[in-house]
């Protein structure tokens, strides 16, 4: 087990820069998830850590040693691929022990390690089967088993759950978390699914266009995003962004969305945003769960407004409501019993205690604490 450090790592293919100088420190035992849309450089980063891609510039360190020119087999890493990449002509046991056999481990130890990994992953009964006799979930377990038996310094996962159906994905997600809790190996996990990132990670690394947008614990990213990209990427349904500006009314600060709609900011927020010039073009970022039906005893900072619903989506435990505000579609989450109907007017309330204020041009979240 070891730390992994990336120092100004760059990957260039001909004239395309896939990874643009990223710095990342992953501590021992940590579970790091790289998340971002396709083409953001997350898989390339993982493959550079694995040694499957050369790095154009910068340094990668595993356990304190620079491994830029170390071949994959000497980096002491194990990787789980999206399409499992099991050796089709070998049984489960042979698949799992391939790496150990290549390194001429004693037979007894190989057997012990395979048995232990199979037990951990609950695939003991499948040990003599060939990959084609296994289901997708079982194949992915075997692929994980192949990584575990090697007892490497670092586990690398490249979208391991993307080929599984939704239900199995949830189940395997929990399995992966359990395995990590037991073996505690430093893990770098790549996914485009923000739910996977949030649920698995100790820290999430949000990447966009070859750069790291923000690194932080799942809850920190959710509640305190640094940029519009992170704010919009993390959370589902995505955060609403509404053009707005600040205006002074007496000694108070208002946030004006439209000519008709303006809300007074709660005192804490007003203090936070005091320094922002009033003329700036801003965006109000508000998550759907902070737009709900009006409740009888409203706290401070929860401001009511009227909207005509375009569409409602009953989800069972909640109903998503969509309405248009100055041309922008806005999503809210209301109680299923609140009486939301397609095309009907509804009185909603926005919780400004949980708002974010962004600079429209730079996309930076303003007044972060």
């Amino acid at each position: 087990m070891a730390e992994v450090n990336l120092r100004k790592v760059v990957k260039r293919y001909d004239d395309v820069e896939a990874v643009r100088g990223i710095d990342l420190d992953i501590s021992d035992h940590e579970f790091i998830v790289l998340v971002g849309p396709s083409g953001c450089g997350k898989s390339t980063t993982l493959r550079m850590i694995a040694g499957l891609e050369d790095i154009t510039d910068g340094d990668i360190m595993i356990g304190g040693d620079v491994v830029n020119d170390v071949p994959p087999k000497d980096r002491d890493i194990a990787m789980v691929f999206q399409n499992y990449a099991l050796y089709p002509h070998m049984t489960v046991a042979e698949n799992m022990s391939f790496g150990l056999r290549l390194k001429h481990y004693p037979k007894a130890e190989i057997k012990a390690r395979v048995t232990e990994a199979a037990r951990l992953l609950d695939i003991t009964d499948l040990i003599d089967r060939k990959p084609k006799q296994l289901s997708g979930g079982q194949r992915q377990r075997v692929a994980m088993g192949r990584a575990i038996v090697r007892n490497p310094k670092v586990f690398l996962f490249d979208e391991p759950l993307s080929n599984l159906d939704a239900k199995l994905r949830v189940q395997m997600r929990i399995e992966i978390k359990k395995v990590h809790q037991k073996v505690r190996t430093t893990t770098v996990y790549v996914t485009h699914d923000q739910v996977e990132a949030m649920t698995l990670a100790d820290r999430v690394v949000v990447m966009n266009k070859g750069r790291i947008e923000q690194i932080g614990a799942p809850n920190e990213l959710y509640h305190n995003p640094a940029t519009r990209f992170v704010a919009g990427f993390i959370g589902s349904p995505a955060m609403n962004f509404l053009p707005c500006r600040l205006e002074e009314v007496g000694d108070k600060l208002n946030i004006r969305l439209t000519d008709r709609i303006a809300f007074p900011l709660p005192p804490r927020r007003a203090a936070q945003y005091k320094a922002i010039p009033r003329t700036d073009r801003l965006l109000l970022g508000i998550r759907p769960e902070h737009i709900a039906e009006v409740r009888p005893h409203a706290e401070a900072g929860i401001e009511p407004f009227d909207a005509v619903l375009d569409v409602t989506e009953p989800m069972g435990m909640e109903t998503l409501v969509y309405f248009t505000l100055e041309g922008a579609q806005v999503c809210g989450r209301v109680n299923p019993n609140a009486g939301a109907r397609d095309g009907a007017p509804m009185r909603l309330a926005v919780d400004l205690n949980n708002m974010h204020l962004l600079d429209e041009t730079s996309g930076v979240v303003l007044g972060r604490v």
Partner: protein
Amino acid sequence: MSSLTIDKAGPRRNVKYGSMSRDRAWALRWSYVFLTIFAIFSLLPPVYMLITSLKSSAEISAATNPWWVFHPTLSNYMQLLSSNQFLRFFWNSAVIAVLVVIITMLISIPAAFALARMKFWGSAVLATGVFLTYLIPDSLLFIPLFKMFAMFGDWTGIQLINRWYVLVLIYPTLTVPFCTWIMIGYFASIPKELDEAAIIDGASWFQTLTRIFIPVALPGLIAATIFAFTVSWAQFLYPLVFTTSTDQLVMPVGIITSLVKGDVFNWGQIMTGALLGAAPPLIIYAFLMDYYIAGLTAGATKG
């Protein structure tokens, strides 16, 4: 004013509505018809050979029904199988074919692996180039090749013309390009993650080739083996040109030169020899067909 009659059933449409199953039955029937015609067309010559091989010379020259044996005899088989000359042809053919298969595989497998997997400058051009060399017909090559080997003999004193082993050197010019080409295809169809997984597991390129690629691409290897064997077994032009002594001949040439004497054709033995000569490839096909068809990559990745 003329009266107008309206057809209550609507205008008649000249369209036949067929069900899928009827379409399929129709397709099936016609495919059987054509397959039968094709089977008859391709099986008639060997059947005729078999019939003739069971006849005595007297019966062949008598003007009886050529499609029926009135006095079956195995004498043609007896004579050929007890003839040292024929057994020599057979032995030469077998040794050459086996050696050519081995040489071809030793060259083609690493070449295909390198061209399919190791990205190096010009690998794509090289792969196409390999295939293009296969397109040059042997009828264009035999004269320069003959000249080459003759000159080689003059310079070094090592005589290669009229030695059976010269064919072991020549046949790979036919088999290597094609076998490399089909194996590039097989190797390229193996998911890239498989060799990446092997490399991370600690395998060298050579181990990746021998322990992952060769077993996984076995159907392709067998297809290439069958091809190399068939080509060297059935070659006619090169052995005709390069070998002349009876003890150096291979079967296809040997049968013609030893059993056709002037304008006397020993048809019974020619047919017998040709049938016996066709047996080894048939046997190999029969044994390897299962492997050939089996999709061994199933289960490697999703799907």
